């Protein structure tokens, strides 16, 4: 990976709330191209999941509505708010890194990690309450998809946590010429986790009605 970005002046971020890179349509692609390829491929896989779910729901809408009634949409909403807040910290960490303010970037990645971790805690709580209530992956087709799709998303989340931790290590390496690319790529991956949830949340918890 190469690191050929022209960083904005240090301190610019503090004045206008952005790093200067956020308002212009810069030609340089943020992050590594290979990571973008992975993101697109992964999102295509999730598009197939969305299709499977919507076809299943169309075939037996009443069963899906009855199953959906057993979920707590407020948990999905809180998880959405957690992920977007964590994504915001990550976006600001990338801005700081572009401005060469590595210590600020590091601090913001730690905040992204801390806030993001709450998603994991809440998801584990949600899974455990469902299992305690006798609801498993075999309960119904809805719950098969619920556990499978949110489980795969959760796996992506865990990988994202690992990537952010690696990023923290990279930030310590002052001589590493690729650390900006690393942080931008990690940020892109973290945002992908966030935006897949933006479809999973309404699809599983909200849209389609419940009884």
């Amino acid at each position, binding site marked *: 990976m190469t690191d050929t970005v022209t960083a904005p002046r240090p301190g610019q971020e503090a004045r*206008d*709330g*952005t790093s200067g*890179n*956020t*308002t212009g*349509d*810069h*030609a340089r*692609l*943020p992050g590594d191209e290979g990571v*973008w390829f992975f993101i*697109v491929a992964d*999102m*295509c896989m999730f*598009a197939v999941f*969305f*299709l499977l*779910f*919507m*076809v299943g*729901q*169309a075939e037996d*809408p009443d069963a899906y509505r009855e199953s959906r009634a057993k979920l707590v*949409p*407020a948990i999905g*909403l809180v998880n*959405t*708010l957690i992920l*977007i*807040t964590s*994504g*915001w910290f*990550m*976006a*600001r960490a*990338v*801005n700081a890194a572009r401005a060469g303010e590595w210590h600020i970037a590091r601090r913001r990645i730690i905040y992204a990690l801390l806030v993001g971790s709450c998603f994991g805690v809440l998801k584990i709580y949600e899974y455990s309450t469902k299992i305690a209530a006798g609801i498993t992956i075999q309960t119904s087709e809805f719950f098969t998809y619920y556990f499978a799709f949110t489980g795969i998303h959760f796996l992506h989340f865990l990988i994202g946590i690992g990537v952010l931790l690696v990023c923290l290590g990279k930030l310590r390496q002052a001589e590493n010429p690729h650390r900006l690319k690393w942080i931008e790529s990690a*940020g*892109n991956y973290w*945002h992908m986790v*966030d*935006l897949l949830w*933006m*479809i999973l*949340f*309404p*699809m599983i918890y*909200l*849209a*389609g*009605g*419940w009884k």
Partner: protein
Amino acid sequence: MTLRINENVALALLALLSLGSFVLVEEDIMSLAASLAAFAIGLLKINLVFGSFMHLGWRHRPWRQVLTVWLAVVAVILATGLAVLPWE
């Protein structure tokens, strides 16, 4: 169109939109319009993340274009999936 705004404003908008979709559907759980709106809000939020958090613009060929096609395909899947359901 790329929605590119200051990330602080984007965060506030994303939170409001998330809350809005939740309230919309909670208020009218058996309405096609509310469910469609929840998905439309989700897609709008994704556009906001592309522009304001990922800094992905139209110059970033082919990734922005590919992701826009992805968004369009997902929108068709979700809207069609809802339209075929029986609604009260």
